[in-house]
C-alpha cells in the first residue's frame, strides 16, 4: 500500500527539528532511517500529519567513545556503527548483535536510536542496551533528560519519550576488562525479528542476562554465585515467569525451551570469552 498524505519537513539543524516537533507535538512523527516507520506508514498502521526528517542533520551523525561510554547520535545508522573501527574492542556485544539487525539493505538506512525508539520487543538493539545498562538521551526545545534503558522502554512498541522529544543519542557502556559478552537469537530466517534472543554479560561469579522476544520488552536478570544447576533453575524460573505466547512463529512452550537452551549457551559463551 501507499502512505496516507502528510506534510514533510527535511530538518537541517537540531534546532529546526526540535522547534518543529515542539510546535506539532503528537501530530508529528520523527523520521530517521524509516526502516520501521515507512513500512508502518505504507501499511497505514501509522498515519501522521507531518513527518520531521532528521536524516540530514549532520551534528547528529556520530559515534564517539568518551568517559567509559560509547555515544551514538540520532542520525547514525546501524551500518555506520557496525563499521566503527573500535566496535569489536569497545563494544563486543554490539559487534555480535548488529549483523542480526535486519539486512544490509536496511542497516544502511536504519538508525540505532530509531530502533530503540521503535521498541520492538524482539529487536536486538533494545536488548543490548538493556543488558549493558545503557541510557537514552532525550531532547526537546525546552531541555534534555537522560533515561536508563529500563526506564526508557515501557512496553511493546512504547517508550517514555514525550511527543515533543527526540532521542538524540544512545549511550552504551564501554566493555569492561574481565567481562565476557555474548549474543544469540533464533529466527526463521536470518535478519527476521527474533523468536527468542538472549544477550549476556558475565564477570567472575556475576551474570547479567537479558531475554528478548518473549515479554513485552527485554527482561533483564542479574545473578551472582550460581552453580551450573542453580543457573539452569534460574533460567527455567525466568522462562516461566515471562510466560511467552503462541503465535504463527512459535508456541509459548517452544519459547520457554529456547530461553532455557539459548540462555545457558549464551551465558557459557560469555564466560569463556572474557578478556
Amino acid at each position, binding site marked *: 500500500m501507499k502512505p496516507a498524505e*502528510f506534510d514533510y519537513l*527535511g530538518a537541517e539543524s537540531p534546532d529546526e527539528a526540535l522547534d518543529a516537533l515542539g510546535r506539532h507535538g503528537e501530530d508529528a512523527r520523527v523520521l530517521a532511517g524509516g*526502516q520501521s516507520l515507512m513500512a508502518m506508514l505504507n501499511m497505514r498502521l501509522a498515519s501522521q500529519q507531518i513527518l520531521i526528517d532528521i*536524516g540530514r542533520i549532520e551534528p547528529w551523525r556520530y559515534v564517539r567513545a568518551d568517559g567509559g561510554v560509547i555515544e551514538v547520535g540520532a542520525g547514525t545508522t546501524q551500518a555506520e556503527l557496525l563499521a566503527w573501527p573500535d566496535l569489536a574492542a569497545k563494544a563486543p556485544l554490539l559487534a555480535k548483535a548488529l549483523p542480526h539487525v535486519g539486512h544490509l539493505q536496511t542497516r544502511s538506512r536504519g538508525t540505532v536510536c530509531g530502533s530503540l525508539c521503535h521498541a520492538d520487543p524482539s529487536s536486538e538493539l533494545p536488548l543490548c542496551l538493556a543488558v549493558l545498562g545503557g541510557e537514552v538521551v532525550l531532547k526537546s526545545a525546552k531541555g534534555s533528560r537522560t533515561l536508563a534503558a529500563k526506564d526508557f522502554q515501557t512496553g511493546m512498541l512504547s517508550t517514555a519519550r514525550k511527543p515533543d522529544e527526540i532521542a538524540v543519542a544512545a549511550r552504551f557502556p564501554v566493555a569492561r576488562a574481565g567481562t565476557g559478552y555474548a549474543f544469540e537469537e533464533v529466527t526463521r530466517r536470518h535478519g527476521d525479528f527474533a523468536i527468542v534472543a538472549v544477550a549476556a554479560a558475565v564477570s567472575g561469579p556475576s551474570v547479567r542476562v537479558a531475554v528478548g522476544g518473549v515479554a513485552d520488552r527485554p527482561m533483564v536478570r542479574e545473578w551472582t554465585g550460581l552453580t551450573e544447576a542453580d543457573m539452569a533453575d534460574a533460567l527455567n524460573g525466568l522462562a516461566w515467569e515471562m510466560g511467552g505466547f503462541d503465535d504463527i512463529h512459535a508456541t509459548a512452550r517452544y519459547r520457554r525451551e529456547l530461553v532455557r537452551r539459548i540462555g545457558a549457551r549464551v551465558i557459557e559463551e560469555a564466560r569463556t570469552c572474557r578478556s
Partner: protein
Amino acid sequence: MPLLKRGTLHPISLVVDGVEVTGHAEPRMLLVDFLRRVLGATGTHVGCEHGICGACTIRLDGEPARACLLLAVQADGRRVDTVEGLASADGALSVLQDAFHRHFALQCGFCTPGMLMTLQGFLEDNPDPTKDQVRAALSGNICRCTGYSEIVDATLDAAARLRNQDQAATNPT
C-alpha cells in the same frame, strides 16, 4: 528546506544511473514509484512495499537501500543507482548480470533487479566472499523461483571473474 505541503507537487532533482533528472513528487510519493511512474524507469520492481521482499533495492549514494522505504523527496540532491545502469550503453551485460544469465539464476525475474543491486554493492565490499557470506547478504532479498542455489553460484562465479579482471588490470603483462 521549507515545509513541503501534502497534496502538492514539489520539484526534486537527483542523479539516476549517472544522469541528472528532475521531476515532481508529493511528499508521500515513494522513491520506487517516482522511479517507475515519473521517470518511467520500470527496471526497479516494487513488491511488498514494506521492506521485506527486496525487489525494489537500489543504491542511494552507493549504499544498498529499499526504494519502497524512501520518499522521493528524501532522494532530492542525491545519487540513485538502479538495475538499469548495470549494463553498458551498448547493451552488454555486466559481469554479474552475465553470471546470472549463464547460471539460470532467475526464472520469473521479478526479484532479479533487487538481487543484482544488493549483490553489486556486496561484491564491491567483499570481492572474495564465502558461500555463507553470499547467503547472508541475500537474506534481505526473497526469490520464490530459484531456491537461491543458482543465485549463490552466479555470485561466486561473478566474484571470481571480477577478481581476475582486477588482477589483469593491475598486472598488464
